[in-house]
């Protein structure tokens, strides 16, 4: 039987200073846009993300750190409805929603 493919994961948190929902990027920064999140495709990658999150928490950069599931395939699309709402904002105030990607510069 073929081994199940590991679940893709990303690292998310809220910024200490303003509480904003943020994602850890491939560039090693915290971005408000989920599409910029670094995707862990292996268990080792996911462990590395968890360690980065713990260090950022200890450094008082972010709080409420979590490694979360994203859908398989291209891009960082959170699997669970809770994380979809965190990534874009309240579904009942679409006027306040944020994009999954940064605005084109």
């Amino acid at each position, binding site marked *: 039987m073929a081994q199940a493919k590991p679940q893709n994961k990303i690292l998310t948190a*809220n910024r*200490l*200073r*303003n*509480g*904003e*929902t943020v994602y850890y990027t491939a560039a090693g920064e915290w971005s408000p846009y989920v599409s910029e999140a670094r995707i862990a495709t292996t268990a080792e990658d996911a462990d590395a993300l968890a360690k980065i999150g713990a260090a950022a*928490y200890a*450094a*008082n950069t972010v*709080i*409420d750190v979590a490694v979360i599931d994203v859908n398989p395939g291209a891009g960082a699309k959170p*699997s*669970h*409805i*809770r994380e979809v*709402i*965190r990534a874009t*904002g*309240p*579904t*009942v*105030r679409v006027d*306040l929603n944020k994009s999954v990607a940064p605005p084109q510069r």
Partner: protein
Amino acid sequence: MYIYDQFDHAITKERVAEFSQQVSRRLTGELSEEQFRPLRLMNGLYLQLHAYMLRVAIPYGTLSSKQLHKLADIAKKYDRDYAHFTTRQNIQYNWIKLDQVPDLLAELASVEMHANQTSGNCIRNVTADQFAGVAGDEIEDPRIISEVIRQWSTFHPEFSFLPRKFKIAVTGAPKDRAAIQYHDIGIHIVKNDAGETGYAIYVGGGMGRTPVVAPLIKPFVARADLLSYLEACLRVYNLHGRRDNIYKARIKILVRDLGPAEYARQVEEMWPMTRAAGVDVPAGEVARIAAFFAPPAYDKILEPVAAFTAAKAKYSAFARWVQTNVHPHKVPGYGAVTISLKPIGGIPGDASSAQMHAIADMADTYSLGEVRVTHVQNLVLPNVKQADLFAVWQRLGEIGFAEGNVGLITDIIACPGLDYCSLANARSIPIAQRLSQKFADLDRQHNIGPLQIKISGCINACGHHHAGHIGILGVDKAGVELYQLTLGGAGDETASIGQLLGPGFTSEDIVGAVDKLVNTYLDLREKPSETFLEAYRRVGPAPFKESLYGRR
């Protein structure tokens, strides 16, 4: 309204300074999140899904127009131009930045407001009947002892680290409009056989995962003894409450496990000690506080008021709004207006800063400068002349709050749910919005009659679903939002806990399921005046279950 004395001002100012320092120390890393979290919670500051949330206390739901203007200013300056009124008669801001909280709290303090004890394991903001002081059926204005309790419980050193949070509600009339039996302590102002006013004390009610209707622990506590008796109730709980298990830590579990009679006995045993400590408030001090709530100078008005009668005759929509949204006032020629924060398709309890400013202005023009918050997430202008009701209704129409649905099926309680709350398992607000749209037709709403739908997005039950005539509880089943239905709950003087009907419904199906329940009721009621709750209590769940799940 109560006005802060020098002590209130001093402690509020000191607390702002203290918490400002704690925020600074957190931002520099001197305090860890583990150290800071209990401190921020005691100051009403949570972390939710998108940002920090600040819960501001509105003691017993009473606001001045000046305070409401300030709350609106804060929504604009520190949040995204709106805020949310809650089932605890408080207000919540959803998009708060930690580094701005000290400035925000200083602004609140300038209008005698704060966020103290709106979270944490302490005595929370005391709640009361929104018609306090104006209801015709009132025995005593519940704001007087609510204010006494507020002063007693503020920063009370013995009760700042209780096993769990502690909520007290007071109602001053035979009709319970404050859901007192769903509180840790519910106080019902009563008269004894000798005609003296005192307090019936219910202890150990609550919502959450273990809903309990509080038993009556003492039928009559004399006015002069109230605080020492409450202190005895709290002390027994503080000593014996289950600190080892968060799910068993509320006083309702202690009272249930001991049995109400044994709990009452232990309180009686404790009472002489708290009495001897001299905690009871001297009559002179109670009188000083009561003076703040003395009736304002009402005009002498003869009823019927011709302009009011004529407006009702001319505008049927106005007449209907009066029927549902204007509560009888104890003074002839006046009415207490409930402003429905439940426009069809709207977000229950939300108001923009512009709407808040407009309501504060209306309070000044038409209601002697006062506003109330109800636990049903509406606002009240308590002192409106009947002759001004038409102008109030028109102005409310201009700001989108003229819905004549108070007490009807679209006057829905909904917690913030998964759209905002980090504890939620499912969204509440979209279900409320779709139900409101489904039942928008006002003729049908009036035909259905009084029907309370209450929606919670998790078992913590901030949306009071246990007390809903129709309760809806959102759950997460393998990543999918499902909604369970309970029937027969009530939060008034006939308090009861809603019973689960059966398996949950998807978001797509829940509105249709509620529609079936309503149609079942309309089919089986004996006469139009038999309410949904009365019909349910008469026939039980069987016909409702059958309408949803078929014969089994």
